[in-house]
């Protein structure tokens, strides 16, 4: 796989992760505007609306708008499912610590590893590591492929589609689209 394609994959994953892990802010919106210049894809909306939606989608379990962003919940209808354990072991062996990410404090305070933003960040980091470590690149890519099959492709397609359907703001519709794209990244040769 070409270096450029790797970098693209890492970048889109990191981008989606950032939107999951950080509450909307003026800074975030401005940067997005400079990347997504087509108003069909992304248009600015009032910050308070965006904040409200961020909380309802990802935090408030009694909200009808809530789409639980944890893999275990999506696939096994429980927290700390098999998926969480598997993902935790991935992080441990890879020496990846979600605590070290620049994200909202409340994501870091909860210990479950299979949060969608964490998983995307991890995937991105694997790809960046493959690019940076020439001698370990093959193994790292293999890891990335495995992780993608087991923990990204397995659920994020559906999640992203649902987000696209149910989001009220264009920011989170966009996030849904990006999520689908991350889910369909192919790391095959050629």
């Amino acid at each position, binding site marked *: 796989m070409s270096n450029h394609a790797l970098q693209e994959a890492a970048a889109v994953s990191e981008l989606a992760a950032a939107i999951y892990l950080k509450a909307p802010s003026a800074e975030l919106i401005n940067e997005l505007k400079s990347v997504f210049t087509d108003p069909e894809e992304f248009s600015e909306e009032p910050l308070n609306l965006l904040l409200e939606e961020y909380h309802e989608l990802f935090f408030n379990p009694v909200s009808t708008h809530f789409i639980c962003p944890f893999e275990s919940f999506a696939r096994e*209808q*429980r*927290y*700390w*499912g098999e998926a*969480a*354990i598997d993902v935790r072991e991935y992080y441990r062996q890879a020496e990846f610590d979600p605590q070290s990410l620049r994200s909202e404090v409340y994501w870091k305070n909860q210990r479950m590893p299979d949060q969608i933003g964490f998983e995307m960040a991890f995937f991105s980091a694997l790809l960046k590591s493959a690019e940076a470590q020439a001698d370990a690149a093959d193994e790292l890519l293999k890891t990335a492929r495995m992780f993608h099959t087991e923990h990204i492709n397995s659920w994020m397609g559906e999640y992203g589609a649902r987000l696209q359907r149910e989001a009220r703001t264009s920011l989170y519709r966009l996030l849904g689209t990006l999520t689908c794209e991350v889910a369909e990244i192919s790391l095959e040769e050629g």
Partner: protein
Amino acid sequence: MDPNRRHFLELFVPTKAQAGSLQSQSRSPHYAMLIDLRRCVGCQACTIACGMENRLPEGQHRTTVADYELMAFGQTRRAVLPRLCNHCEQPSCTAGCPTGATYKREDGVVVVDSSMCVGCAYCVQNCPYDARFMNEQTRTADKCTFCIQRTSNGLLPACVESCVGKARIFGDLNDPDSMISKYLRDNPVQVLKSDKGTRPQVYYISLDGALQNTLGEEATSLIQGRRSIGKRG
């Protein structure tokens, strides 16, 4: 899992062992614990016995003994505080459980059904005593069960069995002749955080005010042991 072990456990379900007692007693026992702090020597035998009897993951405890240094009447003293789930009459934990996995039984024991627990940890956050934790191995909410596998077989909880100072007393409040009933009649007792309305069923003798409501968090220094049950580090 060893099939024979499962078999023995199935033999000894509560209904079978208590069959005799249910016929002759008109009502269920009401289990509670009393801890006489004058007798506790801070040896932590209970902490270890519980962990081994219940095969808890390393670093996670259903009971523990916090160990403090305090000033009392201008003199330095040491204070020890064994703590565990209080099996409250009005538990804060069960009210918030979304699946009903945790509930208080007729015999007073507050339990967690691990088949129904989804691991959201609301109960862990709601407990004012920090008595619950997420078990890393089973990945369900976990806490003291009064050694339900032992009491349902006519035995005592591990922490009581191994208490070197004989400080922990366990028994049936519905039996007026039980040792715990006698102790409660003969001694003034205190409970932790009595102002929370939880009505704990773990009673203390000689519980100092410095420890009662703050769980010693403001005590001069923590020497050893754990500040809260179940939390790592």
